[in-house]
């Protein structure tokens, strides 16, 4: 009798669950559950208020610095993620190759976020692809053409004052 009572009353839990699903929903007290209808506004770059007398160049510079800091913070996060996860043994050769390229890319980014001299930071900012010395002792610096184009575009945006951030 005890077992029968237990099983029957326990099965009632399933029926209660069915009723909750089928019956029209009951209102929930607001102190328990507050349904937010408006999503909070996502702001990656904080709004810069131009104080009276501040020049346009100053506003553009501050905006660029903010953009740069946001990019640095995201890069640090990517480095942490890459370090935390390992490629499974069952991964295909294509995945391993992609992961290797990504790790090298992150390693390059990691060098960018290391503390450096001011001129070195400026160089990295202008040429994200990195710079190298030619091997013939000529002293000439070789840069990635894509980095040059990116640097020119970034400078052009900054000068025009319509820098909305990299997309």
């Amino acid at each position, binding site marked *: 009798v*005890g077992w029968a009572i237990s099983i029957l009353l326990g099965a009632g*839990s399933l029926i209660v669950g069915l009723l909750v699903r089928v019956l029209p929903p009951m209102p929930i007290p607001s102190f*328990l559950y507050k349904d937010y209808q408006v999503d909070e506004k996502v702001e990656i770059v904080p709004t810069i208020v131009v104080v009276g007398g501040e020049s346009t160049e100053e506003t553009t510079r501050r905006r660029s610095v903010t953009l740069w800091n946001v990019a640095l913070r995201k890069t640090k996060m990517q480095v942490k993620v890459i370090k935390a996860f390992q490629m499974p043994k069952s991964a295909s050769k294509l995945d391993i190759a992609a992961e290797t390229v990504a790790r090298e890319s992150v390693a390059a980014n990691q060098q960018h976020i290391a503390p450096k001299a001011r001129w070195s930071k400026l160089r990295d900012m202008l040429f994200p692809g990195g710079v190298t010395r030619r091997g013939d002792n000529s002293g000439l610096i070789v840069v990635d053409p894509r980095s040059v184009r990116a640097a020119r575009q970034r400078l052009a945006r900054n000068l025009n004052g319509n820098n909305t951030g990299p997309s």
Partner: protein
Amino acid sequence: MGIAGTEVAKEASDIILMDDNFASLVKAVVWGRCVYDSIRKFLQFQLTVNVSAVVITFVTAFYTTVSGDQNPESILTSVQLLWVNLIMDTLAALALASDNPSDELLHRKPSRRTESIINADMYRMIFAQALYQIAVCLLIFFGIHHWTGGKDGEQMHTDSGTDPVTATIVFNTFIFCQIFNEINSRSISPGIHY
């Protein structure tokens, strides 16, 4: 694009596709929603267990204390509560977490950033289940002795504590409630999805 993308784009991005395959976006969304749903299912199940166990334990312990029993104790003993936690926290969680993602996950809208992890439907299920389980267990605690052949007026608590038959039936009922509620907890949305 983690391979072909430029460094500037990767620095400014929120998500990087390590394999440069747009299909990975769909997989990431599906598995992300599946894991989120699994956490919600487990929360729904676990909160029901905890709310009902705490209330039953408190009420029965309070009653046996107030009624003047020489050995007042809860109807659910410490070992039984530990057993419930051991089984329900591990096996039930594994069962709810091992559900595979379904195509329906892609048919719903994204969750809002400010959305609570426990939604209104989960609250309704948690409180309805907890109320039912508390009512059933307390009903047995206060009345089963007469149904199973006890004499009128005979106390359901002996001098050495709660009647073991009553305690066993309450515990069994509580466990069966959780077993059947596990089926309810496989879904966190309204409608029948068993």
